[in-house]
């Protein structure tokens, strides 16, 4: 999220007769980010310390002479370089008081601009497109300067960019309504010419801004119709075909700024970082037609992230050095600190609470809490932008609301309340909210707010005893997801309710179950469990429960079933889950709930024999899976343990044994279960045998360490 902070004035402006110009020719960074050199459009160059808002030095050329390009600071030599009257290059130091006494050299061709990167050597760009390093130029000032541009071509804008160690002079030209971009690489020199795609006829770019990032030069340009285009050009791919036909420069529309009436006149766009663009002289999208705004747009989300109305006329000029924007407006040059933090979608749509860090404002420090006109404007604007939201409600108000308001509103308010409230004092209020919701839902069959309840359960502050009707309500409303959550999070579900859940789940048709959206972890657990059917059926400790079926007495089963079983035994990996994926996930939740046998047993008797058989089949499936594969308790995923499965098998058998014995379709199942039990008994007895020998180890007398000397009795036979 980007933010513009309180700005402050660096200096006043003397706009010259031509009203459209701010009177500032250029602002260049000096020795560090806190010093800038401001060149006015006529005769003087001033050095400012930005944080002090104070000029440190000023140099003026003689009357009659005119500065034709912004002064730059050569940090290698601590010298300033400027050009007067197009041809005279002047170089001076901070100690030099009189500019006229400083070094000057006259060159043979008109200079467009002198550019200098921080720490780099100044580069002179001539009006006819030639480029020279300052040193080599001053070594022979009268050297002939070649003409790069054709007759009617003229430079409109230029800049210099440092790409790692390589300097690039970038300039744009106009020739009969066509615009071209030149990329001049220095050392080794190479020049490349691109043609900018034509916008609507007659429109020429208002401003350019070039940045270097990740081995690419990114050019940003703004047209009067509000379109901001971006062209990215790889530094590496620069060819050296000079004089060839200009290559069209690919561009993408980055932003389409709102232009209320007609075209933009004095506006400019400047890239602040990869996602943020500062735009000046363009109307704020939510503040009418006034163009006197400085806005920061997020190009990813196409939103204004910060905006500031500037007092006075804007000139479409904008500079930015190290998180400060320099903007001339009206009769002042203002410095506005800004901050561009990484945006998330949540922040972009205003969901994320963003507390702007308070940056000390010079106005506040110097003049106390005096209301600033710009500030008042800003607050007004932001106010209007805010959606008409009700003030934060207290718990009682929310409770009142729940009793009457529609579902959506309740959802919004509860959500708001939950985000506001502290987790510590959430416990009682969540309970109140939930029980109020449940009681309204019970009273009003049309009313049911699943998502709100889900949210409340998710806080994990609820338990069954706080609102005893919740689970049953969820069952009634077929909100199985909520049921699942309750089974997961409630520590105190009574056995009757658990059983009710079980009954509902087991009787639910698989088709319905698959439509239910469930907690993804539980589903994925079942998925992996089932998908392991394809995995190799490994033996655990050399123990394969399937093969123990051979132990079953032959007399008990008919030949046919035996053949079937054999088939089954020969292909243990073909285990098929008797219930659907989602149903299994729900049943797993039931398996994992806490219960006490005595209370559960009577309720279990309510299950129909059909369901019992199905459930037993499912439990058998789980048991086989568990003993066949390496324990599937996957990293941290909630899953029923083998002991839980076995306990449920026992419980079910206890509750329904007589019924099952009588049910013909349960016979095979019972036989299988019998073989499990047998194998378990055998395993336990084997373990018992081992225990005997292990205990012998325990009995072995630990030989006390013999000291230096002892007298012992031995006997030989």
């Amino acid at each position, binding site marked *: 999220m980007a933010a513009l902070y309180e700005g402050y004035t660096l200096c006043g402006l003397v706009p010259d007769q031509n009203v459209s110009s701010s009177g500032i020719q250029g602002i260049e960074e000096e020795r560090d980010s806190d010093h800038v050199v401001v060149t006015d459009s006529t005769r003087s160059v001033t050095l400012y310390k930005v944080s002090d808002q104070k000029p440190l030095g000023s140099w003026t050329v003689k009357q009659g002479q005119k500065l034709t390009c912004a002064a730059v600071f050569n940090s290698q030599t601590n010298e300033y370089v400027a050009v007067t009257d197009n041809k005279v290059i002047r170089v001076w130091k901070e100690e030099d008081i009189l500019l006229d006494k400083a070094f000057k050299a006259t060159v043979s061709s008109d200079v467009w601009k002198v550019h200098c990167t921080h720490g780099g050597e100044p580069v002179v760009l001539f009006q006819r497109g030639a480029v020279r390093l300052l040193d080599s130029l001053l070594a022979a000032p009268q050297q002939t300067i070649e003409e790069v541009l054709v007759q009617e071509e003229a430079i409109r804008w230029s800049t210099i960019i440092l790409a790692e160690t390589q300097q690039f002079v970038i300039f744009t030209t106009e020739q009969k309504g066509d615009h071209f971009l030149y990329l001049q690489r220095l050392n080794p020199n190479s020049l490349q010419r691109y043609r900018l795609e034509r916008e609507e006829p007659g429109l020429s770019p208002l401003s350019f801004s070039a940045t270097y990032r990740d081995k690419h030069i990114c050019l940003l340009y703004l047209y009067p119709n509000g379109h901001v285009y971006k062209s990215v050009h790889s530094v590496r791919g620069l060819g050296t075909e000079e004089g060839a036909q200009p290559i069209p420069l690919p561009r993408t529309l980055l932003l389409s700024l709102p232009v209320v009436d007609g075209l933009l006149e004095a506006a400019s766009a400047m890239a602040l970082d990869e996602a943020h663009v500062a735009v000046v002289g363009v109307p704020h999208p939510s503040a009418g037609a006034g163009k006197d705004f400085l806005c920061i747009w997020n190009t990813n989300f196409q939103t204004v992230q910060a905006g500031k109305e500037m007092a006075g006329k804007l000139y479409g000029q904008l500079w930015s050095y190290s998180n400060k924007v320099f903007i001339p407006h009206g009769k002042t040059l203002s410095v506005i600190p800004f901050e561009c933090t990484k945006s998330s979608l949540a922040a972009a749509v205003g969901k994320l609470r963003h507390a702007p860090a308070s940056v000390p404002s010079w106005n506040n420090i110097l003049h106390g809490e005096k209301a600033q006109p710009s500030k008042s404007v800003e607050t007004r604007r932001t106010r209007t932008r805010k959606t008409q939201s009700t003030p934060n409600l207290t718990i009682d108000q929310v409770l009142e609301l729940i009793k009457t308001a529609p579902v959506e509103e309740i959802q919004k308010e509860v959500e708001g309340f939950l985000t506001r409230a502290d987790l510590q004092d959430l416990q009682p209020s969540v309970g109140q909210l939930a029980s109020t919701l449940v009681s309204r839902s019970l009273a009003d069959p049309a009313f049911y707010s699943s998502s709100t309840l889900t949210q409340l359960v998710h806080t994990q502050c609820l338990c069954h005893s706080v609102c005893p009707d919740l689970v049953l309500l969820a069952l009634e409303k077929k909100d199985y997801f909520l049921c699942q959550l309750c089974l997961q999070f409630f520590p105190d579900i009574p056995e009757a309710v658990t059983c009710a859940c079980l009954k509902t789940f087991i009787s639910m048709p698989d088709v319905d179950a698959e439509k239910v959206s469930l907690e993804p972890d539980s589903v994925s657990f079942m998925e992996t469990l089932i998908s392991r059917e394809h995995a190799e059926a490994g033996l655990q400790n050399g123990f394969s429960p399937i093969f123990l079926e051979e132990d079953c007495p032959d007399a008990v089963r008919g030949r046919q079933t035996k053949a079937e079983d054999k088939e089954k035994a020969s292909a243990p990996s073909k285990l098929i889950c008797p219930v659907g994926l989602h149903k299994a996930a729900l049943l797993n939740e039931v398996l994992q709930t806490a219960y006490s046998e005595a209370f559960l047993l009577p309720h279990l008797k309510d299950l129909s024999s059909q369901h019992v058989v199905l459930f037993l089949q499912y439990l058998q499936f789980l048991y086989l899976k568990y003993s066949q594969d390496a324990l599937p308790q996957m990293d941290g995923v909630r899953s029923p343990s083998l002991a839980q499965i076995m306990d449920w098998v026992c419980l079910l058998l206890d509750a329904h044994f007589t019924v099952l014995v009588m049910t013909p379709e349960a016979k095979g199942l019972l036989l299988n279960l019998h073989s499990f039990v047998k194998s378990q008994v055998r395993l336990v007895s084997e373990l018992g045998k081992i225990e005997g020998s292990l205990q012998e180890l325990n009995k072995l007398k630990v030989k006390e360490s013999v000291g230096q000397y002892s007298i*012992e009795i031995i006997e*030989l036979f």
Partner: protein
Amino acid sequence: MGEFKVHRVRFFDYMPSAIRAMAFNSCTERLAVARSDGTVEIFNFTDNYFQEKVIPGQDGRTVEALCWVGQRLFSAGLNGEITEYHLENLRPRYAVEAYGGPIWTITSNSQGTQLAVGCEDGTVKIFAILEERIQFQRNLNRQKGRIISLGWHPSGAQIAAGMTDMIAVFDAETGHTTHRLLVERGVGASKNKEVVVWSIGFLSNHTIISGDSAGKVQIWDGLTGTLVRSYLVTRWDVLVLSVSQDESSVIAGTSEGTVIQFQFISSTVDQHEKEWVRTRTFRNHSHDVRALIHTGTAVVSGGMDTQLVVRPLLDKVERNTQESALRKIAFPHRSLVGCAKKAGLLLFQFPGHLELWKLGESEGHGKPGDCLPVKRKPEKLIELKRKGEDHICCSALSACGGWLAYSTVSSVCLYRVQYNSNNIGIKKVSKLPKELRSAHQLCFSSDSSKLFASSRQSSVIVVAVNQLECKYLHTLQHKSGSRQPVHLLFASDDGKWLATANTDCEIHIYNLHKLKLHCMVPVYSSCPTAIAIHPVTSNLISVHADQQIFEFSLVQKEYTQWSRKLQTQGLHSLWLERDTPITHITFNPRNPDHIILHDTFMFCIIDQSLPLPEVKAVLCNQMTLKSLPVPERIGQSHAFKICKNFQHLMCVSLLEDLSLVVVERPLLDIMSQLPAPVHQKKFAT
């Protein structure tokens, strides 16, 4: 058999010193091992790795390197001298100052005519080997920096010298350097540390192999002076290299205690070009491997952890035989403990001193397996420091505990010990007969009236000792012509017989009444490791390095019936597979059928009245017998009663009161006294 009261003694702080250098004589299969205290030990690899000779060390004499030339053994050390050893007298024959500062290495040419030593001052000095001595011949061109290691080309024409940061190759004739091979330093922090070439091998195809302190084993082409391969094998130092006789295998010992084998083989099956490939890693040591020998069938290694390890190469020996078993030699093959049976005293022999201890006493009785309460703790009566620079080579304590003697290579000292309840007095016998100059082995007669000292050329000097004077009586000399030193002496209880055994495997019996040779026991091919004469039957029991036991009747001058039976039936295979020799034999005065013998890991009471164990019988059957009811035991029991309750035995003896004394020196105690090994990152540390 019955119950025994056992004095379990663990206060003998025997500490072997680190192995510093080794040399192997492949003709005689003798391994010479030099320890850091200057002791040189000779192991006979053909005779079950028996440690047949020990040349005691001397203060100030260190051995940095050993070298066999034919049957002659040379050593060089940091004292700057080259020493040749007298292997029959077990002492240095002479020492020659090399005048080059400390000597780091010594090697001979393959012809055995010259010795080369590498000196601190940067010279390689060549000595000619003459009949009785060595003579300085010349210096090779002097280098800057010490010469750490030498490798002599089998042709004798070139010598490679390992130095710091480089290897210099000399023309042995002219002494000029022909190549300088620059050895790269370690990476990282050790970049600034100079790299020391610790060891060099020079093969007949002019391949030079070097091991250095940066942990590299490098293969160089000696003709062109170029590096062929470099193997980084350790983070620490490669201290020693050894090349097999056929030059197809090289082993390198590192500071980590590993031995790494490289073999000259084709790296892929279909490739004919051979190259040096790292093949095996042996990890048998906890500390620096300082000395390494590649015999035809085994890797022999030794180092800071004091153990000599023989690791057979399983591709060279038959599997699952005794030959293929790993062997660790941690204890000397001779007894360092003397026991006064009548007085209950123990004498511990250290290189620098002797300790005389009085055993403790217990009260009451216990049942088998019990520990009795100790009424009186054992007590160190005397700690006797030796005189002079030479280390103690042998010592003896008379049965009554009244006499104590020790010998170095230069002198014999005899002390009178007087001990009553709480007073201890010791008096040196000042005037000893001049014949008693040095001894390889000392022994008192059972009535403490005579001292026997084995001297040069297998002779035994008999000296009478009593309160007043010490008188030379006789020199016993055999006529077999063997000049090998006597390493075992035993005087019979009745004072009539004296048995000696030398490293030529000969056992001689002298009649002390007549002071002349009684007989010589038929020579057996393996060296005796313990001999004793039975107090009642006057039969000689001898146990040999190959674990054979013989009983020889001195009266009939023939092997006894029992011995013949034992030989016909053969000893049990488990008995023969033990890898430590029997070092001591005693008898049970109450039961003449009992012979008590021990090695490092067990002691055994042989009951001659019982049948010998069958081939398929369980040899160590004590546990079985224990579980059987008494009447059935007789049917199951056999002559060998083996007890493994006590380990790392230095001595097992039976006192007059029929209580056993076992002196243990647990390996762990030795290990815990070693310096910390180099740090190795282990899992979860």
